[in-house]
């Protein structure tokens, strides 16, 4: 586990797609030792050195088409993914690795194993093994029913015992991470085009509205275009509000956690609004599931909260209820000019929700 995390730290050293000047120019600012005047001097010199250079900028292009925020260029896609894990590959589970995987599948890759170890492949393997297991188990259950009905003959009894043993063995097998072999039976009709003309990346990185807005308004890390016309923060703000009626609520919470350094992603897999990762999906599973509740909401069903709590708890995450106080007066969105001031009218309060088991709390 230690080795793997080291690799990830090297692969993904940056939590946001902003380049630090110290990294860009290789100039490190030393620590200031208050009583040591030389350290002040060195600090001062290096500081001025950096200030003289231009501010590193690496803006990614995002296109808004068909109501979707897309990043098309592969380098940009990679930048947004590896610097904070923004977005989702349109043809992948999360990170945009369609090109790598297809390359591996078609035998076009150079054995660098990038596509072969993708999480999609591992999942595929696991599912195939489980399918086998279920088939055998169904056979066992049928025979057991016959047994209860008293209709089992000798041969079937032997078969039943054999099958039971097989099942036990299957349970014990830990799926080994074998490299995926590229065999011809995985080729499809559509692949012809790719094989002849070369692999064009058909995938784009899809961003949520809150992600796009954060990257634009908060970080200034993207330029966003609709029909080749660039959108300002304000225009983007109004657009996001029009496609998502809960945009303000979602964004306020998203910004709150992102600005604390958390990697915040969609919680749809677990029936909640957001997931929080300390570093990002490749490092470890999400630690928290977030449920957003407007403070002014009158009636909240216990069953609804407890069902989300069960799902989230079932995957060993902690549920956090985020209550959001909204501005008292209704805001006319078309009249907003200063977004930051508007956002400051909101407030987030976290309440932790945990199951309590009296029988385990006695010591």
């Amino acid at each position: 586990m230690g080795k793997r995390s080291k690799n990830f730290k090297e692969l993904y050293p940056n939590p946001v797609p902003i380049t630090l000047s110290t990294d860009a120019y290789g100039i490190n600012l030393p620590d200031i030792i208050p009583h040591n005047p030389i350290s002040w001097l060195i600090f001062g010199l290096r500081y001025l050195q950096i200030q003289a250079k231009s501010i590193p900028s690496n803006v990614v292009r995002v296109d808004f088409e068909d109501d979707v925020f897309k990043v098309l260029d592969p380098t940009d896609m990679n930048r947004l993914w590896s610097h904070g894990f923004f977005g989702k590959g349109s043809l992948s589970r999360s990170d945009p690795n369609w090109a790598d995987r297809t390359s591996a599948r078609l035998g076009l890759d150079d054995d660098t194993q990038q596509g072969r170890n993708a999480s999609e492949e591992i999942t595929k393997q696991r599912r195939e093994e489980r399918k086998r297991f279920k088939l055998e188990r169904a056979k066992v259950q049928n025979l057991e029913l016959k047994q209860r009905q008293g209709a089992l003959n000798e041969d079937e009894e032997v078969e039943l015992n054999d099958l039971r043993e097989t099942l036990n063995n299957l349970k014990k097998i830990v799926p080994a991470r074998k490299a995926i072999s590229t065999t011809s039976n995985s080729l499809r009709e559509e692949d012809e085009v790719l094989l002849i003309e070369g692999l064009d990346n058909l995938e784009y990185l899809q961003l949520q509205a809150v992600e796009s807005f954060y990257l634009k308004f908060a970080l200034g890390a993207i330029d966003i275009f609709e029909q080749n016309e660039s959108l300002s923060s304000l225009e983007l703000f109004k657009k996001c509000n029009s496609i998502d009626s809960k945009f303000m609520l979602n964004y306020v919470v998203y910004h709150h956690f992102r600005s604390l350094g958390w990697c915040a992603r969609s919680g749809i897999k677990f029936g909640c609004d957001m997931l929080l990762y300390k570093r990002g999906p490749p490092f470890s599973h999400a630690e928290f599931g977030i449920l957003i509740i407007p403070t002014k909401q009158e009636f909240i069903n216990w069953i609804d909260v407890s069902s989300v709590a069960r799902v989230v708890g079932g995957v060993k995450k902690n549920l956090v209820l985020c209550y959001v106080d909204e501005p008292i007066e209704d805001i006319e969105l078309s009249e907003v000019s200063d977004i930051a001031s508007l956002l400051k009218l909101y407030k987030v309060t976290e309440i932790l929700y945990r199951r309590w088991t009296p029988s385990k709390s006695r010591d």
Partner: protein
Amino acid sequence: MSDDEEVDAIQDWKILTQDVVPKRGDKDFAPDGTLVQSQLLEDSRNAMYAALAVRRGHTIKQELVAIWYPERKEAYVPHLRGPYFKDIGRPSSSPSNKIQAAWLNPIETVYLCERGSVRIFLHNDSYERYKTRILQNYIQKEKSQGQGNNFDDDDDEQFDFESNLVSLSLAHLYALAFSHDSTLVGKYQVYSYLKRLGYLVLDFKDSTTRQLDEYHKLVENKANESSISIFQALKSYTLSLFSSKVSNILLAKRHYFTYKSIFRSLRLIPSYSTYDSLKKLKEPTENKLTPCFDVWKPTPQFSKKNPTQPDFQIVIANTNQSSFPSLSQIQELFNSSNHMLNSNTTKNTPATIKNSSSGPSKREIRAQRAKERYSKLDPKIQRSIDYNKLKDKKFKFGNSGRCFIVALIDNGVVNFVNLSEGDFSLAGFGTDDLQELSSNPNERIDHGIVW
């Protein structure tokens, strides 16, 4: 077995007749019409019915009696015996010093009767007259033998309960004790659930006033401390000069040297900070939730009169009738809890289940190894590990430890939920322990940043 599997596993009632710890058995998916299955079902049912038929009661040696007073809705125990009264009952004056008596509320009465420990009789005049006679008797004894109250109780008149009063069946007692208040059955179910596990339970005591006092002291102390260094002030002033509100881009276009400084510049959304709910006490909400019980973990030393701080505090909610609490209701609960401000309690963190039988579990072995590795590390690194561990704990269990347990009832099924005061920004009260462990004592506002 995971929690989910546990919930739907079979209840094997046969185990009760075998003096063995209940195990979980196999269930079937669907009825298949076979005799085998229906026989198994019959067996399971009969095992259950047999257990339900086991009689409640106690041996003559353990005989314990109480008298239910319908007008008072309380039971009087004239002669306390047994281990039940550490937390149960309010002492009553009795004529003799040797014998202790107590009054029980409806919930305590039903609990003791239902478990078979106390036999309840219905009060009538004959018992009152008896009590008066006994009292007069003592007064006379005092006159003749002088004070001191060490009278011989043996020749006292004994009251013949069986001839004079009606004994109450469980159904009768429930009707008498719980009919006047429809919340009592639910409260009783939670109470008895906890009592059966050995917890000590008393009525809830509100601590809002104390919390408010402690909060005001904290605020005073903070104001007296020099909060921010000049260095910090200069830094933040110069930085603020660069922010550009005009273009509606939050992060100013300038050189950045650390990611932490970027995150600091991105902080914008106001968020709740620990103890903020005590800042300005609002009017009590319309449907103020009234907590029910103060609960203590089982402990041999427990004093009803001067109890220690409760380990848990319980409020009851019915899934069918009440909404999930609103934020103000939750904060009201936090304010009323027994929490000592700034005590850095690590309350309600799950207890490590001690594995007494076989050797150390895998988890324990791993923990032991981690401990060994840790002890060999550089103290600076040790501090950084401790710092991060503490942060994680605060994210998961709350910064202050202020919390409440909700006992959720759904038609007789009880589930418990812990609601705790969260604080991901970790920028206000309750962060002194983090401050001590942090590498840079001047940085007061960064504890919440995870990078």
